[in-house]
């Protein structure tokens, strides 16, 4: 159930489980304590959905839903529809009901033991045990006519085992539940069944999956998978807000291959579709080891799992909101960068525009002359087209720089390409500031999965910082270097280094903190935004000083695909 829920929601829910042990501690003090305890425990995490497994827990949550899970959808499971009706559960509670068809189990026994003459039905002394016995008596009325039928009830555990040893070998034994024996001793039913089966002189059948491996041959049961899937599907529908109604978990015939062998029963006589467990001991033993605890918890009547699908909506809303915040902040950062680069961008636009204008005017003058040089005119027109393209490129780069995101635009791209485009954007500004930009690309493609515009923004932030760090350096020494590499750990690295004065060692760690700035006009947000972006895409960023002077910032991002 857990697996199904987590798979279907891609892990976006929180699951909490609580074992109430109400069957063995039915006293009202315990119930009250449990209610108080859970109410306090989940005070800040009110669940969306509560799954109650077993009768007592269903009753418990119905009685305490105001304190524990106000407004939550309640799903009950692990008992029959008739039991639910008797309990009078609130009308909005839906169930994944398990119908324990004792007749089906009995028929499976008849198939395996066609020659049997005796029928024994075993049940305990608790209220549940007695009601089960009553149900079985009614259900088996027809079936039991063919046998010499004995109901073993109101016995102590010792009496049960003694009587079991005396079963005639042509007997069919059906075990219901024993939560309590006549002396009032409490049991987990399968343990009682196990004790009985050890001395029994005839095969025992039971309608519970948990009885398997506790000495029973098998029965018609609701498997863990079947119940879990039914409950989980109900829960998922409830979360999705679809209308839900009670349904029945499908049943399966299960037989223990070792028990078939013990009693000399032929597997050919099993009903069609029956599952044999322990047929290949190693495989099944592994399987059971892993699930037996869960199984016990699920079907034992006093057990509850609170599947608390807590805060799912709130958490998702919070995640969405924080992502939107990041996108907003990144966009502000983009605008600030665009503002800082506006002078050089204007220059970059004015160059082609100025050239176009002068070329057009020159052409006009040439055409007025007596014998216009048409070859030259032709060349002028080609140049005008080229400059127009150049202006267009500047504008589309600018548009890319200012692109606002409502959502992260995930795409796979080559880090080398983004580095190149960032350099193109910075080229004018670097020239204006007398900074020489050099880049060294890894010889291979460096695929990264992220939002291109965001990664470009990180590069722009780091590069403009680097240029700012070099204002006091003589012009000839202002160098900005960008380098991309594939690290030995198969990550993609980009380093941006400058020839500025570096960062004081004690401040290397704090440069990424918000509002850290050394510039009079700085906001102190550039690097913290860079870090937020890099971390969003599963990467890391850090700063260091170069031994030859100047600072170097490194970004590491995961490689999008291996190879």
């Amino acid at each position: 159930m857990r697996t199904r829920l987590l798979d279907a929601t891609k892990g976006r829910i929180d699951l909490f489980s609580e074992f109430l042990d109400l069957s063995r501690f039915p006293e009202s003090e315990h119930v009250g304590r449990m209610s108080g305890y859970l109410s306090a425990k989940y005070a800040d995490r009110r669940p969306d959905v509560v799954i109650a497994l077993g009768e007592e827990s269903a009753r418990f949550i119905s009685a305490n839903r105001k304190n524990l899970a106000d407004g939550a959808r309640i799903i009950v499971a692990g008992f029959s529809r008739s039991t639910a009706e008797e309990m009078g559960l609130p009308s909005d509670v839906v169930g994944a009901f398990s119908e324990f068809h004792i007749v089906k189990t009995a028929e499976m026994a008849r198939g395996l033991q066609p020659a049997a003459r005796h029928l024994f039905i075993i049940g305990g002394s608790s209220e549940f045990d007695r009601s089960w016995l009553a149900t079985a008596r009614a259900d088996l009325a027809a079936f039991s006519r063919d046998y010499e039928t004995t109901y073993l009830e109101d016995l102590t555990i010792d009496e049960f085992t003694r009587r079991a040893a005396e079963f005639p070998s042509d007997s069919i034994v059906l075990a219901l539940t024993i939560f309590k024996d006549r002396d009032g001793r409490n049991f987990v039913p399968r343990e009682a069944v196990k004790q009985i089966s050890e001395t029994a002189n005839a095969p025992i059948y039971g309608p519970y999956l948990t009885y398997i491996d506790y000495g029973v041959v098998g029965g018609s049961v609701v498997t863990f998978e079947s119940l879990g899937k039914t409950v989980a599907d109900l829960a998922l529908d409830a979360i999705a807000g679809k209308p839900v109604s009670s349904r029945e978990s499908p049943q399966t015939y299960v037989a223990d291959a070792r028990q078939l062998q013990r009693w000399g029963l032929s597997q050919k006589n099993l009903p069609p579709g029956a599952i044999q467990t322990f047929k290949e001991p190693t495989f099944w033993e592994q399987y059971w080891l892993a699930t037996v605890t869960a199984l016990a918890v699920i079907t034992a009547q006093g057990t509850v799992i609170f599947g608390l699908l807590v805060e799912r909506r709130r958490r998702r809303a919070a995640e969405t909101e924080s992502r939107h915040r990041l996108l907003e902040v990144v966009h502000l950062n983009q605008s600030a960068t665009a503002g800082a680069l506006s002078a050089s961008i204007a220059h970059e636009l004015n160059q082609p525009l100025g050239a176009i204008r002068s070329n057009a005017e020159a052409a006009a003058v040439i055409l007025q002359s007596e014998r216009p040089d048409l070859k030259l005119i032709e060349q002028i027109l080609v140049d005008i087209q080229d400059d127009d393209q150049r202006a267009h490129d500047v504008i589309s780069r600018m548009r890319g720089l200012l692109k606002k995101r409502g959502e992260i635009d995930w795409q796979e791209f080559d880090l080398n390409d983004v580095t190149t485009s960032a350099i193109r954007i910075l080229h004018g500004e670097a020239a204006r500031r007398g900074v020489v930009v050099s880049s060294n690309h890894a010889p291979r493609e460096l695929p990264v999965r992220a939002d291109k515009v965001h990664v470009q923004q990180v590069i722009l932030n780091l590069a403009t910082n680097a240029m700012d760090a070099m204002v006091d350096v003589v012009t000839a020494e202002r160098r900005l270097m960008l380098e991309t590499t594939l690290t030995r750990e198969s990550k993609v690295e980009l380093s941006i280094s400058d020839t500025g004065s570096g960062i004081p060692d004690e401040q290397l760690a704090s440069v990424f903190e918000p509002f850290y700035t050394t510039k009079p006009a700085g906001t102190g947000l550039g690097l913290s935004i860079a870090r937020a972006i890099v971390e969003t895409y599963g990467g890391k960023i850090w700063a260091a000083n170069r031994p030859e002077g100047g600072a170097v910032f490194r970004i590491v991002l995961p490689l999008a695909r291996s190879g």
Partner: protein
Amino acid sequence: MKQLEPVVHIIDDDQSFRTAVGRLLWASGFRVALYESGDQFLAHFPDCEHGCVLLDLGLPGLSGLELQDRLAEKAPLLPIVFLTGQGDIRASVRAMKAGAEDFLEKPAPREALLEAVERALHRCETQCREQDRIHGLRARLANLTPRELDVFGLIVRGKLNKQIAYALGTSERTVKAHRHNVMEKLGARSLAETVSIAERLGLVDATADPLRR
């Protein structure tokens, strides 16, 4: 068509832009020379040619303003018209203070460009003519004897012959003879002309009193 003597030197790192501006000026009848950097211009420009410079303010390497400083030493008479894509007020003020002829914003319309270039060339011409005259005067000044030079310095400061004679420890008549020689050698026909020549040659320093030397 204009006289083809002066050359407009266009210095811009943007090949396409300088070609286009070059074409426009060429089509409008100017001689043009194109350079991609300040260093290239300094390495090639001919010393004593008339013309003007059309200079991109935001040049990489040697910047526009740095080149202006260098030209102030090497070719003080070459007027500079700055072209800029960015309205950088501080740089513009600095450029104008350092003697820029004009300041145009890219993209400059043809009329503005031609007007600025023509004005610059005109200025170059007058400055060069003035420069030639000064060169001539300097040559004449070189003909004066040390004594005549002393007398010249005192005349242009409005000293009377008597005062000069006293200051130099000589007779008034001797001073008169020197004075005559000075004016003849310099080609001045009046005292006012003599003073004007001294001023152009930068010999009149109002704060200094040569009598107290």
